């Protein structure tokens, strides 16, 4: 595949190659919630990334939605499907979904290219997990980060815990996970989650400038450096899926999902 041919516009996201950079733009309303259609399109992006990697030097993931980068999994779809299916089938469906999205995020994480998440606004749950799969997170001043899954009786399921543990200290992992609270971008940079801060609306520009810098270096050397400094916690990632699925079987999770889906609360994101 030649990079000149690559521009794909899906219903929830598009990707295109520009100056040796594969850019993935998310645009599913309201805030890029990841459901089955988004997953299919992420899988398409993942295949393109692997097919084109020899011709590229960087990847940028960003959002075109005003609300933020990504609010995480599509909980409404998850709840609807779990209501339609028998319990065992629903758990099998969840496991299949998780295994598929783990393959996508593992591909991004292990890519020999330098990968950059340019984030703003809500970067919660699965959105934070997508950002954590990238090498660098560049955040504008409006970005907020959280893992609110415990309020549903669940843990993050898209590989968030092993990657967070890999990248930041225990105090941060425990605070984010066990309280479900959100951090702003300044705090996120202080704790080592975010590499660079940008002004409001400037994260993508900063990511493109960073990708331009990356281009100056020998690809093989950059890839070797990345392999050396960034291990992929495959065993913990598998364990996370098992824990998520065992928790998902409980009635408390269905109750938590129902409460979220039916909530008219002005602050439904709060744990």
């Amino acid at each position, binding site marked *: 595949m030649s990079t000149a041919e690559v521009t794909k516009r899906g219903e929830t996201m598009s990707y295109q190659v520009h100056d040796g950079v594969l850019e993935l733009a998310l645009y599913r309303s*309201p*805030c890029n919630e990841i459901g089955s259609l988004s997953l299919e399109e992420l899988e398409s992006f993942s295949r393109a990334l692997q097919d084109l990697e020899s011709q590229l030097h960087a990847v940028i993931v960003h959002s075109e939605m005003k*609300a*933020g980068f990504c609010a995480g999994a599509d909980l409404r779809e998850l709840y609807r499907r779990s209501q339609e299916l028998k319990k065992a089938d629903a758990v099998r469906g969840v496991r299949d979904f998780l295994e598929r999205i783990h393959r996508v995020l593992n591909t991004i994480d292990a890519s020999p290219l330098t990968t950059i998440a340019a984030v703003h*606004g*809500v970067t919660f749950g699965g959105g934070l997990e997508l950002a954590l799969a990238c090498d660098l997170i560049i955040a504008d*001043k*409006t970005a*907020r980060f*959280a893992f609110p899954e415990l309020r549903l009786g669940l843990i993050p399921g898209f590989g968030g815990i092993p990657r967070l543990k890999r990248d930041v200290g225990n105090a941060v992992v425990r605070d984010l996970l066990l*309280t*479900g*609270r*959100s951090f*702003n*971008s*300044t*705090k996120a940079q202080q704790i080592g989650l975010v590499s660079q801060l940008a002004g409001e609306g400037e994260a993508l520009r900063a990511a493109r400038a960073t990708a331009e810098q990356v281009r100056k270096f020998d690809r093989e050397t950059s890839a070797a450096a990345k392999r050396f400094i960034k291990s992929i916690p495959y065993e913990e990632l598998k364990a996370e899926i098992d824990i998520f699925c065992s928790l998902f079987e409980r009635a408390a999770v269905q109750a938590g999902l129902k409460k979220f889906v039916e909530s008219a*609360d*002005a*602050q*439904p*994101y*709060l*744990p």
Partner: protein
Amino acid sequence: MPTAKDTLDEILTLAAAHFKVPREKLSPDEDFFKALGIDSLQTLDLLTKLESHFSVELPDYELQGVSDFRTLAGKIQARL
């Protein structure tokens, strides 16, 4: 350190400017969701602006159930 009244005044001024609502239409005991006409995402935006303006951290769970400017000012004052 600013007084509680200073903090409350700053919040009202900041909220009015950010959400383009006349300052004189906001009162300390008013429900800010209604007064500002904001949804959950905009509430997060306000939280970020307040943290940045006052250089404090405001854990979301401390704000659960808080809906008026005066109580919000008290939460911020306790973190200054």
